[in-house]
């Protein structure tokens, strides 16, 4: 079966965006300049959702478009889905301003 496609928006990113429906065990191909980066999905990655390109420890910055889109609220394994269950925003966090834990 041909590899499923995901897009990296910037070379510094540690996530890529699925542009096909990806199933667990699917090979995923990510075109980068002059090559194709490959990995295997460990979870379903719906169209438009993000896949981890590497192991991301808890607390580590998650990058897309070459910029910070949040940080890992849990350890994320390479090939896993990255979304609100394991990524938290760092901006406009009124809940933290009130004495919550960063």
């Amino acid at each position, binding site marked *: 079966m041909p590899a499923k496609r995901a897009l990296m*928006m910037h070379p510094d990113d540690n996530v890529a965006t699925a542009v096909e429906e990806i199933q667990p065990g699917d090979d995923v191909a990510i075109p980068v300049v002059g090559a194709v980066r490959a990995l295997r999905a460990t979870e379903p990655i719906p169209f438009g959702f993000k896949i981890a390109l590497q192991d991301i420890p808890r607390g580590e910055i998650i990058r*897309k478009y070459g910029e910070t889109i949040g940080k890992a609220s849990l350890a994320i394994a390479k090939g896993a889905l990255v979304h609100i269950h394991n*990524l938290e*925003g760092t901006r*406009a*966090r*009124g809940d933290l301003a009130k004495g919550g834990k960063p």
Partner: protein
Amino acid sequence: MSFLGYVRSDGSVGTRNYVLVIPQGIIAKSICDFVAGTKSILTVDHGSGRTANDREQIARLLIGLGRNPNVASAIVHAASPGVGYPELRAERLADEIAASGKRVEVLDPAKDGGTYGAMVRGIQLARMMVHEASKVRRERVGDEHLCLGVKCGYSDTTSGIAGNPAVGYLYDKIVAAGGTALFGETTEIIGAEQALARRAATPEIAGTILQAVAVQEERAKATGLDIRTVNPVPSNIKGGISSLEEKSLGAIHKAGTAPIQGVLKYAERPARKGLYFVDNWMGHLSIFAGYAAAGANVVLFQLGGGGVAGRTLLEGSPSVVAPFVWATANPKTYAAATDSIDFYSGTVIEGSETPEEAGERLYRTVTDIASGTLSRSETLHYTEPIDMYLQEPRF
């Protein structure tokens, strides 16, 4: 690099040719129901109990709509509950619109034989004004006369990858041609403000962008909430966006790459041409009327997921006198509402077009609509009310 437009006496160029009747009310409604070629507005607020700042904001919206190049002439009536405030007096609104060289007529029930008398006089005037406007012919003019306004909404990850980049290409092209392009949505640049500040034409403008974000972020924090319970909105999260920062970083692609020439208030007219950031709110019932009041002669809604499953009709948003263009890069949204959508750039995701090719096609779509082709939403007789962007408390 041109379109067919209506050249106005102040040198601006319209893409449409309306007689505008403001503010809303039964007089405006009766004129517009009776006379073809007229436009009015629908709001839930006339300024009563509003502070001076907010009343001035309302005045700026009304005057700006009147001055929009898509307006040939205007009728202002003195029958709104807000008209007792100095900012909203009909004569003041009329004078400032007329300063652009347009014909402006004032209706006053106290002088025109009451409400019925003002309606009849308004209908008679509007018929003559529409007829007069119809004698103006479109002329071929350069793209420096385009003024665009954009919002992205129901954003999903197609917005940042393929939807907004096509708009960004269009924005760069129009700005390079000497035109004007407006973008905004202050909450949706939180997390992307440094990237925008680096593009500011001067350090002062960079400071103003950062300040607008700081004010908005403090307001958000003051709620005590995680912004993610408010924005990104549920449809964004369902579409794959995981944080406000991610939404913002995708959203700014619609602004292209040109230097930012200034920060404008809601409904504020830019002093010169070029790319401007507008310190406004994302609501579609608010933002497009503000762009039209700032002088936009075409506005675009870059749509992501469509928000609601089974949404097969996209009804447009109140942009009053500016033709409203729907664009999407989401193949499911496009398949569901093909006959509502003016432009599709999911081709970039599918690999059949580059963002530049899609942007070039969007340019042709926009200049066709500017030249008189109806946008899909213009084929509907439907207008939602304007939710004016007013920030101060009411008393």
